[in-house]
């Protein structure tokens, strides 16, 4: 068993002129729950489709469970569970039929486990899939993705469409359960709170590029909010590396700085600023800080 569940290097994907994923890299260790954060259109789904060999990358190396998705797709699909964003299932099948149909493709199919999930989600096996609510549909898709005991579970925006209660149950208990079994989860979302609750590592993608990757704490630590007092006649602070946002007027400024450290402190002080306080950010703020960068500017 490899230690690395997902290893991506230099991944680029273009749709015609548009670059969806741009020199992206990530490494997800086996057994981890990795939250993959990004705004809508940041390149999350494209990346995931490449991991699942539903898209062929323009460039870059991809390894999933030690396999090249392009070459060993069948082996990959045997070991990976995947739930697409808003999964579309065969509406004309009954829940029971869809479970049977899906199970026919796997040697490792665990029928009782799937039935257990279906029971837990309160799904009626005799109901037609097209009559399920959106949430139930997502739950069924998850149950199906777990049926063959995948070593890696890839979830693309699993929580979008679910109400708050279901979302909690879905994310916390299910993913907890999965992780307890030693499986790896790669979970994309734009809902930072949800991810923060379940993930031990987080990667943030913006405009197809990886912004930061690490444990939740590391990501939080990766940006700081700095309170700076300025002398009355001081110029605006400039040239501070990693500066994302400046707020405040008069003598006080609130700076958001990515990768804050001694270097940035020295830069601030050199311009006559006096550092009054350095505050930690929440994950959401850190996310926003990172995402701002790609927009190319201080506001």
């Amino acid at each position, binding site marked *: 068993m490899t230690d690395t569940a997902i290893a991506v290097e230099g991944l680029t994907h273009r749709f015609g002129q548009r670059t969806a994923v741009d020199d992206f890299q990530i490494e997800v260790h086996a057994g981890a729950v990795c939250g993959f954060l990004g705004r809508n259109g940041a390149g999350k789904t494209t990346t995931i*489709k490449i991991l*699942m060999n*539903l*898209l062929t990358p323009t460039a870059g190396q991809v390894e999933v469970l030690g396999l090249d998705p392009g070459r060993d797709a*069948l*082996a990959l*699909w*045997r070991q*990976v569970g*995947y739930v*697409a964003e808003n*999964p*579309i*299932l*065969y509406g*004309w*099948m009954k829940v029971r039929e869809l479970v*049977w*149909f*899906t199970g*026919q*493709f*796997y*040697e490792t199919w665990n029928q009782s486990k799937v039935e257990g999930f279906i029971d837990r989600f309160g799904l009626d096996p005799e109901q037609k899939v097209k009559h399920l609510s959106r949430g139930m549909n997502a739950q069924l898709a998850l149950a199906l993705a777990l049926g063959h005991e995948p070593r890696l579970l890839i979830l693309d925006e699993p929580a979008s469409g679910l109400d708050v209660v279901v979302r909690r149950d879905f994310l916390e208990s299910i993913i907890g359960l999965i992780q307890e079994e030693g499986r790896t989860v790669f979970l994309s979302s734009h809902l930072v709170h949800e991810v923060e609750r379940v993930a031990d590592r987080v990667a943030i993608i913006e405009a197809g590029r990886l912004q930061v990757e690490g444990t939740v704490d590391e990501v939080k630590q990766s940006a700081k909010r700095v309170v700076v007092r300025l002398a009355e006649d001081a110029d605006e602070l400039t040239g501070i590396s990693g500066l994302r946002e400046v707020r405040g007027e008069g003598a006080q400024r609130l700076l958001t700085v990515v990768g804050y450290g001694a270097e940035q402190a020295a830069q601030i002080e050199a311009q006559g600023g006096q550092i009054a306080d350095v505050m930690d950010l929440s994950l959401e703020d850190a996310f926003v800080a990172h995402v701002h960068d790609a927009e190319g500017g201080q506001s």
Partner: protein
Amino acid sequence: MNPSAELRSKPLRALIWKEGREASYKIAIGVCLGLFVGLIPKDDLDDSALLVGLFGAVLMGMDAVAGERSRGTLPFLFIRPLDRGWLLGVKFVVGAVGLLAVLAAYWAGVYHGLSEWGNPQLLWGLLWEPATSFSLYEEVILADVGYGRILLLWFFLFLNLYTAVFLTSMIADRTLKAAVGGVIVAWVAFSFLGFTMFVLPEDVVWFYMSEVFMPGIDRNVAILRQAFDPMLILVKIATAALLAAGAILWARRGLKVQGSRWFQWVVGALVLAYGVIIGSAVFSRHSQESVEPVGRLPYEVPVVDLALKDRSAVVLLERGVSVVDVADWRAPRESGRAEIEGWRLWRLALSGSTAYVWGSAEAQDSVGVAVFDLSRPDHPELRAQRLLYPIEAGSTRWLEHTPRLVGWAAWDGYLYAGLLGNESLELHSFDVREGDLPQPVHVLPVAERAKHVWNNNWEMRLDGPHAFLTLGHDFVVLDLTDPRRPEELSRTPLRRFGPSRRYEESVEKLHRQLAPGVLPDSVALQLRLKGAYRGLQELEMRQYGTYGEYSYRIAVPPGLGPISLSGDKAYVQRHWPQELAVLDIGDLRRPVEVDYVAREYFSGGLIFHGGIAYARKWSKIEAHSVFDYGLLAQRAELDFIEKKGNSRIYDPYDPTPYLASQSNNLVLADDHVCAVMRNNLVVFEALQDDWFGE
């Protein structure tokens, strides 16, 4: 079962279940519609069959992949650990089974209709004019071919279209686009088949391709060849299977979850390219080269037959013989003419400087021989005339009692006549070595007057010391070396396609109805005959000009027709299917059928000269490059434009060339083609071997 096979069989079963369930509605709709269309009476079987096939193929193929793609279920299916070849293969097979079901229902409807009500046309026909709107042509073909074979042929024909639609369905992102695109792609591909002929190095490839993609229910009855020729069936199945396998293998590698956004542009570009190529082909078209005559001699009376003697042409007119000096082919000049009173002349044979003419004496309604002396070209003379088979004047029973001349030739001092009487077919030999009138020396009974010679294209080909004829499905060679004791050299049954039982029953019935004494002798004859001919393909009663004579042409029974000779090859017109059977007659005692020329029909046979075959079609003459693999790839037309004042005289039904005999009425000599056309003696330069170009 080995583990991997078992591993595969479970998902395959599941896939078949899923695809079957998804296709079941389509199949049900297609089957109902097919059955309905099959059952309802229709004028045109091939059109309705083509439409049903088209419908079935498009219905089954269009949403194979595009449907799942537009519904969004494709990623769910595509991440299952099963080779996409299997995924697509199951989809393909289930759709193909659906297509088979639709076609099976359609043909079941058609065959049920046939057995219950006879030809569906009957139902329509009853609404207005049953006696004249009949054509039981298709009924007879279908009875011959049989349900199983026609289903097989139709299935593999439309499997190709289905494959095309299936392929576009793999690319298109919408079902409708797949349907429209598939039909366009198939149509364009089919249209380009014709162009491939000029590209492919081997005619044989083109030939099989054209046979494979051609529906056989047409006037050439090619369906019989397609249904009973194992090679064609094999090629048909192999082509469809290869195309299908190629499509699946290609898609297995290239299939995308997303459809092509550019698909419609690609199809549009294809159509545009198609339009440009077809358009330019139409504008630059000169495939039918027209060859103008180099010389012409017009007559004021109908011209009937023609023979060449040294540098003279002997032209048979309706009531006389004209000798034409053709020393200069470009300026034929009549040197003399002899006439005969009260006769109508039909057919000419030359022996030395004597012309023997078969004709009928109008007053007596009898046939006979007139003899002309041509030893002085500027002063030909009628020497003698004799009536044969005289019958009661004014009786319409001439139809049964007057023998029909089916062969007329002179050779080595003897004259031969093939005569088709009411009872039998006979070969008469006459001694013409002495005296003015031919002296009968022998009558060889060749056959009972068989039902298979009931068409007026039928002929006995007299060639030197041999006579060639067809009887039903037999090719017969007679040896005339000893005119006093001619004998049958061989009688070879040629290949038959299908039992033709239905047809022969119809002909049998007709035969009974036309038995002596049954025919009425008034104008009502025409209607009665039409009634009697009911079971047959075609009946034409024609009244020619003022002569008040009927020529009747009925369905050609599924036998053999005129024979053309070229070296040690004989080309025999086969009627069902309509094609030329090619025989090796190197050994006249053992002729062997070696090949065939598909989909061709020459009512008067062919005349070969320098690698080019000439044949009369209507009032024109067609020139064909000599066959290779059933192809007459290029042709030229020998014709001329005749003008009266400012208007062009053109009457394709001009009966002149057909009155005397069904022969070509063209003679080749000294690299010139001499023919009678529309009251003219016409001379063309013979085409050279390389005329058609390389």
